[in-house]
C-alpha cells in the first residue's frame, strides 16, 4: 500500500476552491430549501383543499426522487422548458427543491407540536393571527424542530457532492479530477473525507450551540 500525500499538494488551491463552492452550494441550497419549504408548508396547512393537495403531491414526489435525478432534471431537462442555467445555479436550485420537501415536513411537525392552548391564549388576548404566528407559533415550533432541522442541514451538506455529476466545481468534482490526473485514488479520497468531515463537524458544533440556546428556558432553574 502506498500513501503519499505529496501527490495532492499541487492541487491545494483547487481543493480549497472546491471546498468554498461546496460551502456556497450548502448555504445557498439550505436557505433555498428552508424558504421554499416554508411556502410548501403554508400551502399544505392552508384551508384551501386544492392548495393543500398540491403541496402534499409535491412533497411526496420530491421525497420519492433521488437528489441526483432532480439535479439531472434541472440541468439536463431544464432547457426543454426554457430553463437554461449554469451548473452552479442549477445545482443550488436542485438542492433547494430537493431539500424543500424535507423542510416542509419538518415545519409541519413543528407547527403541530405547538399546544393548541398556547395559540388560544393569544387569540383570547386579541392578538392577530400574524402576531400569534410571530410571537408564539414560530418560536415554539423552532424549539421542537431544531434537532431535525440540524439533521436536514447536515444531509444537504453531503448531498452537495451529487452536484459533481452536473459539473459543479465543488469538492467532490475537484477531487475526482485530481484522482484521475494523479492516479492517487487513496490520497484523493482521504482529502475528500477530511473536507466533508470539517464541514459536517462545524455544522454539528453550530447546531449544538443553537439547540442549547433555543431550549435554555426549558431547563428548570433551581
Amino acid at each position, binding site marked *: 500500500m502506498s500513501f503519499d500525500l505529496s501527490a495532492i499538494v499541487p492541487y491545494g488551491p483547487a481543493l480549497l476552491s472546491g471546498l468554498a463552492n461546496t460551502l456556497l452550494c450548502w448555504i445557498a441550497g439550505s436557505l433555498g430549501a428552508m424558504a421554499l419549504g416554508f411556502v410548501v408548508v403554508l400551502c399544505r396547512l392552508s384551508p384551501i383543499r386544492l392548495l393543500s393537495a398540491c403541496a402534499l403531491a409535491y412533497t411526496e414526489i420530491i421525497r420519492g426522487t433521488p437528489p441526483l435525478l432532480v439535479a439531472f432534471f434541472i440541468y439536463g431537462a431544464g432547457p426543454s422548458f426554457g430553463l437554461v442555467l449554469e451548473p452552479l445555479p442549477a445545482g443550488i436550485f436542485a438542492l433547494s427543491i430537493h431539500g424543500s420537501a424535507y423542510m416542509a415536513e419538518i415545519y409541519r411537525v413543528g407547527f403541530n407540536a405547538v399546544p393548541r392552548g398556547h395559540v388560544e391564549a393569544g387569540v383570547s388576548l386579541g392578538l392577530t393571527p400574524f402576531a400569534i404566528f410571530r410571537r408564539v407559533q414560530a418560536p415554539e415550533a423552532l424549539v421542537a424542530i431544531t434537532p431535525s432541522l440540524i439533521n436536514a442541514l447536515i444531509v444537504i451538506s453531503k448531498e452537495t457532492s451529487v452536484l459533481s455529476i452536473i459539473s459543479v466545481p465543488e469538492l467532490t468534482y475537484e477531487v475526482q479530477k485530481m484522482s484521475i490526473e494523479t492516479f492517487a485514488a487513496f490520497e484523493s479520497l482521504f482529502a475528500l473525507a477530511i473536507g466533508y468531515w470539517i464541514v459536517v463537524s462545524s455544522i454539528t458544533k453550530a447546531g449544538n450551540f443553537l439547540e442549547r440556546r433555543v431550549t435554555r428556558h*426549558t431547563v428548570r432553574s433551581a
Partner: protein
Amino acid sequence: MAQDMVSITSVSKSFGSLRVLHDVNLSVQKSEVLCLIGPSGSGKSTLLRCVNFLETYDEGEILVEGRLVGYDQSSGTRRLMRGSQLCAMRRSIGMVFQHFNLWPHMTALDNVADPLRQVKGMSRKDAHSKAMATLEKVGLAAKADGYPAALSGGQQQRVAIARSLAMEPHLMLFDEPTSALDPELVGEVLQVMRDLANEGMTMIVVTHEIGFAARVADKVAFLDGGRIVRCGPPREVLNSPEEPRLKQFLQTYHERSQF
C-alpha cells in the same frame, strides 16, 4: 335599568349530532361574579368559551356590553364577524385557562408585557412597567425573570391571570383555573380571584371549587346535559337544592370533604 354586562339568550350548540348546549339563558351584571358548576361534559366550559368566541354557537345570542359576540347581523343575515372586529372584541374579555397556557419561551414578565406591545402598541418600557405592576398585584414581582418551567403551577396560573389583567379587560372568564393544581396551591389562586371580585371585576368562573362559589359568587348556575338546571344566589342553589340531579351532585362534594 343598566345594561347587562353579559346576556346569553337561547344559545344552543352542537358538535355534529351531539347537542352540547341547549337553549341556555343567563345574564351577568357589571361587577357580578357568576360561577358555573356541573359534572364533566355538562357544557359549562363550552358555554364559557362561546362568550369570547373560542367556540362558535349555532343559535341564540350572546351579548357582551350590548354587542353581539362573533357574528355580524347588520345585513339582516348572520355572518361571521370580520377577524379584526373579533380581535378588538376579545381585547376587553380576559380568559384564564385550566392549563395556564403561558408561553414557555418567554419569562413571566414577557408573558405579560408582550401582548401589551403586540395588541396595545405600547413601548417596551411602558409595557414592562405595566407588566411589573400587574405581577406585583398577583404577588409575583420577584419571579418576573423566571421562565414558566421554573414556576409552580399556582405561580404560573397567577402569571396567566396577570397577563389577562394587564390588558384591562371589562370581563374575566375563568375555565377551571384551579383544576390542574396541587390542593395546596389552590388557595393562592383563589385568593387572587377573590381580590379581583372585591375590586368589582365582572367574572364568569367555571369551577369545581364549591366553597369558592359559595363565598364569592353572586350567582351560581348548575348545568347538566347542556341545560341550565338551576340558577340563583349561592345560598339557594347550594344550600337548598331541590332538583334531584343537583342534590346528587352536591352530595358527592359533601362526602368528599368528610374523612
